[in-house]
């Protein structure tokens, strides 16, 4: 399982041809990375220049220097990390809850074929329903606050998790389950000894999907109700026509989302790829 990954890390060169090959692989890597950075620099550079020369109106488009300025201002006001923290905490609670609850519900559905059959059409409908439509309902029922935002996030990630994990359960080799029965094992033992450990990679994968989905849920939730958070800053900035604030928030959001995703990827590497 992990062997394929290992082969990609270059070992010591064994012959001149091999050395040439390794060099070309390294060159290729460098080329890709340089191009990636160039695109970023050129895009931001053009944006800045166009705004400076008033080719575009920075009032509408904002500009990188103003984004940096806004970050500083927010930091000086002492609210920058508060907004980031609010959104990140909501997201983390959302995707952890989504993954855990989704897995638990998937276990119930696996446990009873009857429940699973009954639930099927409901799952299909809930899965295709745009969960954002439920936003106003959550606000009315739960109240305008972080709880409604987290429920919104949960609504978006839960059904996907249930389906993903349940499919993982179903895909497990029936013979592995038979093996437990041969030893006289019970259904609980099948769950503990085979189903959960075998589905662990699937569950971590669901976690990965849920990170992305939770950001959607949190931002939509914050659009609707919040008094703090990056989503709140975006909506507020839009309402008072401060595009600097909007762009800054989007920028921070991008970085936070990328960091969180990488965190989960790292977690996956530690727990799935290298057992023990």
């Amino acid at each position: 399982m992990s062997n394929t990954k290992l082969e990609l890390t270059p070992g010591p060169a064994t012959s001149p041809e091999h050395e040439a090959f390794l060099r070309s692989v390294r060159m290729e890597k460098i080329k890709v990375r340089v191009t990636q950075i160039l695109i970023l620099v050129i895009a931001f550079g053009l944006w800045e220049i166009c705004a400076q020369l008033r080719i575009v109106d920075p009032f509408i488009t904002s500009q990188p220097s103003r984004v940096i300025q806004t970050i500083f201002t927010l930091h000086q006001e002492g609210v920058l990390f508060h907004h980031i923290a609010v959104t990140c905490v909501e997201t983390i609670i959302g995707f952890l809850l989504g993954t855990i609850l989704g897995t638990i519900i998937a276990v119930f559905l696996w446990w009873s074929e009857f429940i699973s059959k009954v639930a099927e059409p409901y799952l299909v409908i809930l899965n295709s329903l745009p969960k954002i439509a439920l936003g106003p309902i959550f606000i009315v029922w739960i109240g305008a606050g972080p709880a409604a935002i987290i429920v919104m996030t949960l609504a978006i990630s839960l059904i996907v998790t249930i389906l993903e994990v349940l499919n993982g359960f179903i895909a497990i080799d029936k013979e592995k389950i038979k093996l437990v029965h041969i030893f006289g094992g019970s259904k609980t033992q099948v769950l503990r000894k085979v189903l959960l450990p075998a589905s662990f990679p699937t569950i971590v994968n669901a976690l990965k999907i849920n990170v992305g989905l939770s950001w959607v849920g949190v931002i939509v939730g914050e659009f609707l109700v919040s008094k703090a958070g990056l989503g709140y800053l975006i909506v507020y900035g839009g309402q008072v026509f401060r595009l600097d604030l909007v762009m800054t928030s989007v920028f921070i959001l991008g970085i936070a989302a990328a960091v969180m995703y990488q965190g989960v990827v790292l977690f996956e590497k530690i727990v799935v790829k290298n057992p023990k």
Partner: protein
Amino acid sequence: MKKIVQIQNLGMKYQSLNGEINALTKINLDIHEGEFVSIVGPSGCGKSTLLSIISGLIKPTEGRVLVDGETVSGTSRKIGYMLQKDHLFEWRTIQGNIRLGLEIQKNITPDTKAYMEHLLQTYGLFEFRHKYPSQLSGGMRQRAALIRTLVTNPQILLLDEAFSALDYQTRLAVNEDIYSIIKKENKTAIMVTHDIAESISMADRVVVLSRRPGTIKEIYSIEIDIEERTPLSSREAPEFQFYFQEIWKELDVHV
């Protein structure tokens, strides 16, 4: 010798939406302690169903199976079962895999631990006990699967096409390996296979089943006159060809 397994008037019908499948009918067979019996038959004749019934995983619709004089009514510790593939859990080490049966039976005691260690030592897996299944060869994995079964100390081993996932060379070697372990541990074995040569090379008796509904067509006592008989030496014996021809004719294979 003691009759350890008695199959009496056994029949099995499966129900499906398209109708009834008559898998097995009127099977009568006694298996003695320490005996190695192989079952061959055309595909779909219910060979694997027969093993599942003996193991207590499924209930027959007619007749009964007695193990050690008691009617089988569910899985029992007296019976070990080896499946077509090794099904070692890739998230457990070899030792973790081998203790699976003991864990499930909540039977991890100093005695069973010592026995596990003894088996690992005797059959050359001790150094590999902390490795993961993906780090072992196919033959070693099969051996680990056998030890996983043996460690729960069953009297009877059921082998369901246990070698068919291996390539031919490995298969011959594993036949040799598993056969010697089974004989050494003094187990009774019932092996289902579609490989006539394999069935003759390992068994004391070969049971030929008919097409569905499967019933016993013929039983061959394999008498090969060699001291220290092993699957490979049996294959070289002059009698081997004779049995092969006989069983081949009996199976009546048409393409």
